[in-house]
């Protein structure tokens, strides 16, 4: 019946979707922090993109559409598996984080920070952020989506997106500089 006969040529939609596989997987890795979950998530995103392809309006941003599916799928998964981890209750996290956001002790010029930060340190520091902050910062600074696009992906108001980006960046900065200054400066928290 449906044996391994001729393969239908992939259409433009499929080809374009497959073109985003790597960045989607990288995003899934930062979202799940775990290879198996990331792989699962990317595959499910592909399945959903196919199922809902009729809802995609040609000419609009396919990348943003795929990222929205990826984040929706992950949110559903977390809810379903009752892995309502610590970080999902974002209001509380933001409240806690606001208290933790102390004044900056060190004001390293950004160039110095760029030079001295390795990819590995950066991934580690990112993974150390609360989920809600990491998602917002990643989508803005790495993937360069607009506030409005991110708000849609994370299903939160734009104001929340901005405050998460802001807090996320400041915390990340602390993490990156703290690691370097630990040796000389006593940590004051």
């Amino acid at each position, binding site marked *: *019946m449906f044996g*391994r006969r001729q393969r239908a040529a992939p259409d433009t939609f*499929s080809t374009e979707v497959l073109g985003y596989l790597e960045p989607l997987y*990288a995003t899934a890795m930062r979202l799940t922090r775990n290879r198996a979950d990331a792989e699962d998530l990317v595959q499910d995103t*592909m399945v959903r993109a*196919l199922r809902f392809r009729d809802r995609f309006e040609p000419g609009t941003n396919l990348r943003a559409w795929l990222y929205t599916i990826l984040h929706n799928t992950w949110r559903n*998964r977390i809810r379903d598996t009752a892995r309502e981890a610590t970080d999902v209750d974002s209001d509380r996290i933001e409240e806690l984080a606001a208290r933790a956001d102390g004044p900056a002790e060190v004001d390293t010029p950004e160039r110095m*920070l760029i030079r001295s930060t390795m990819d590995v340190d950066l991934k580690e520091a990112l993974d150390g952020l609360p989920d809600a902050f990491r998602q917002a910062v990643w989508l803005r600074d790495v993937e360069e989506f607009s506030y409005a696009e991110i708000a849609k992906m994370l299903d939160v108001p734009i104001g929340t997106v901005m405050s998460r980006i*802001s807090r996320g960046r*400041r915390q990340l900065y602390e993490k990156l500089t703290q690691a370097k200054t630990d040796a000389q400066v006593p940590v004051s928290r």
Partner: protein
Amino acid sequence: MSECRHVSEQLTSYVDDQLDVTRREEVERHLDQCASCRSAVARERGCHAVLRHHAQRLREEPLPPGLRSRCESLMHEQARAASVPGWRRTLVPTVLSVILLVFTASAIFSLATRRSDAVLAAQLTADHSKCFKLFVAGNPPVMDAHEVEEMLTREYGWKIHVPPSVDGLQLVGARRCLYADGLIPHVMYRAANGEDVSLFVLNGVTRNPTELVTFGHRSQIWTKNNTTFVLVGPEDESGQLVDATRYVMKEADR
């Protein structure tokens, strides 16, 4: 101080250059006088700059082996399934007689069903390959069917009958898989010849019984009591595996 609070809400937009001229100047006037906000901007800028600088490499996460080919297969399968009703559009205008119309209607019906069967089989075959690769490594321990049933009930609230191991087929795992919008049980077996066999149970779904081959795997689909069972195994079933497949099919819907 209240000015700080007012301005601090705009600092992120300022760093991202998203403010109009008036507001930008307002923020800059404040920054001239406020060291604390200047330092906040410096931190955000530093962080933004570091991430932009590393963005390309951060986005290059090596893909796990097999992921690309599985996703490509999903796309190919979908493209092929979607191309089937294309016939209908060219065929219909040529149909004139009532008899032919009736004939076509039944053909369309069966094509539609086969199309969705192909998509079902493709998705579950992809899950079959993925789950075995990710969750069943090397020589997996044999599991007790009752314990697996209890685990599925306890963890996910599912009450399904899990066919126990027999000669030539060992129960090696069970997990939860995402299918369409729902989550379904996936029971995994390993045959004596090392081949993998999966049983999926879709509650509340009815399908006509069928058998088809996708991505080199054979899927058997059948329904009993408003529950659809899908058994995914290797395309070429040799001797012992035929018996094993028959056994699971007979046992699963008891």
